[in-house]
């Protein structure tokens, strides 16, 4: 258990409940009446994640696999601090960088260069850090002379490359990626994979949510398999991937 205190990411007994509002209580009148009568708004609770445990040590790469709606993104958002857990605790040591929606924060009217600056500060970079990383980001994104062009004229691949480049060039201890490794062409995917492997080998911590089992196997040593918000299996990535394949076959 003493390893827990050294963990880069530690989730213990984490549950996340959402409320699905069936007939939307989207009116103030209803809110008012219910508040006065002390009746809560009718909503169906839905557990996106139940009693989830995860320990990721520094320098470890873990894949979260599972079908759509199994709770993969919820796990990443909890680790990122976007969601607060309903019960249990989530602890992250160091700075985390999240890529859940690629290019969240990009503004289509702004140029590539302006968006690098904007996305950078949204990801938590300081001005100095941004200046120091700027060339590396451009080199990684490889968008050529489109830097001064508004992002709305970019192809979807270029947009994704730029977003990915900013995200991975932020100085971080924990990187969270949600299905974003399927961007760009073959060459760019290869570059991303290599970048992530060298990041991991330098001691960076990585948590990815993925459908792509081959990619998960190449990048990660360990995997957790989620189904309907519950942990089905956790362990060596190869074993989990085989079990997952077998179950779906």
């Amino acid at each position, binding site marked *: 258990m003493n390893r827990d205190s050294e963990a880069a990411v530690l989730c213990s007994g984490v549950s996340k409940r959402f409320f699905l509002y069936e007939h939307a209580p*989207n009116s103030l009148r209803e809110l008012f009446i219910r508040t006065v009568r002390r009746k809560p708004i009718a909503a169906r609770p839905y557990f996106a994640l139940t009693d989830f445990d995860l320990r990721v040590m520094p320098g470890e790469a873990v894949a979260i696999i599972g079908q759509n709606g199994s709770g993969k993104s919820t796990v990443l958002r909890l680790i990122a601090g976007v969601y607060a857990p309903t019960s249990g605790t989530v602890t992250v040591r160091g700075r985390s960088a999240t890529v859940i929606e690629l290019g*969240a924060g990009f503004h289509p009217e702004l140029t590539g260069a302006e968006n690098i600056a904007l996305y950078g500060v949204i990801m*938590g970079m300081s001005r100095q850090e941004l200046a120091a990383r700027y060339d590396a980001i451009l080199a990684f994104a490889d968008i050529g002379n489109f830097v001064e062009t508004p992002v709305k004229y970019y192809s979807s691949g270029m947009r994704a490359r730029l977003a990915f480049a900013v995200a991975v060039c932020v100085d971080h201890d924990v990187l969270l990626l949600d299905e974003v490794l399927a961007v760009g062409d073959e060459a760019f995917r290869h570059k991303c994979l290599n970048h992530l492997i060298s990041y991991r080998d330098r001691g960076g911590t990585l948590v990815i949510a993925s459908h792509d089992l081959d990619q998960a196997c190449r990048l990660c040593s360990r995997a957790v398999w989620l189904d309907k918000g519950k942990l089905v299996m956790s362990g060596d990535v190869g074993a989990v991937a085989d079990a997952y394949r077998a179950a779906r076959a």
Partner: protein
Amino acid sequence: MASNTSLWSRRTLIWGLVLRNVKVKYQRSLLGFLWTLVYPLLMVGVLVLVFTTVIRIQIDHFWAFLISGFFVWNYVSASLYAATYTLAEHAQITRSIALPNEALVVSAALSKLIEFLIELALVLIVLAVALHHHLPASFAALPLLLAIQFGLTLGLQLPIATLAVFYKDVQHALPLLLSALFYLSPVFYPASMIPESARDYYFMNPIAELLTLYHQVLYEARLPDIALLGSVTLKTAAILGLGLMVFNRFKHLFAEIL
């Protein structure tokens, strides 16, 4: 994590968002900033026409009285309306990156303040040249009024933004409230025209107090009334405190609902 989510530590973020708002609004538009002036100038023109030729209001230099308050009113109402969509506009960011959501509201407020400062500079020049024929000493009180204006507006923006996340009604209800408030605030008439017996109720509205202070400083060129200044400052502090409380109480839910 904690240091990453405090508002002051994210001033780079706030400034970055302000810069983006300004850039996006004014690039690739020929008239640029002039567009911001079109609406208030049009309204000022119409109101001057109506209140000097149709309903003859007994105020010397009515145009000067009007511009002393109209831009302030315009700032407050536009900012409050903007608060109904600011968070929804940034839903994608809120859903993917943990950041202090206050920063989104504050940066929207600051972007509007920048526009207001430019408008105010123009108003000051016009008033000094065409009305006072010198630079009145009372203008020195403006930073104080600006601080109250920003604080009061932000204090109202925070709960409006919070409510707008949960209830779409806010976007429909607020314009109605604002158009009522336009007539219930001293924008095109001075507060002194309100009957003595009703004035206490009238000045429960901090916006009425703020506008009256602007009239004193800009139009009458006298130092602001201390009692009025004290009252509006207290209300602003209370509203800002309450607004922050409401916002902080609910902000952990924004990512789930947006």
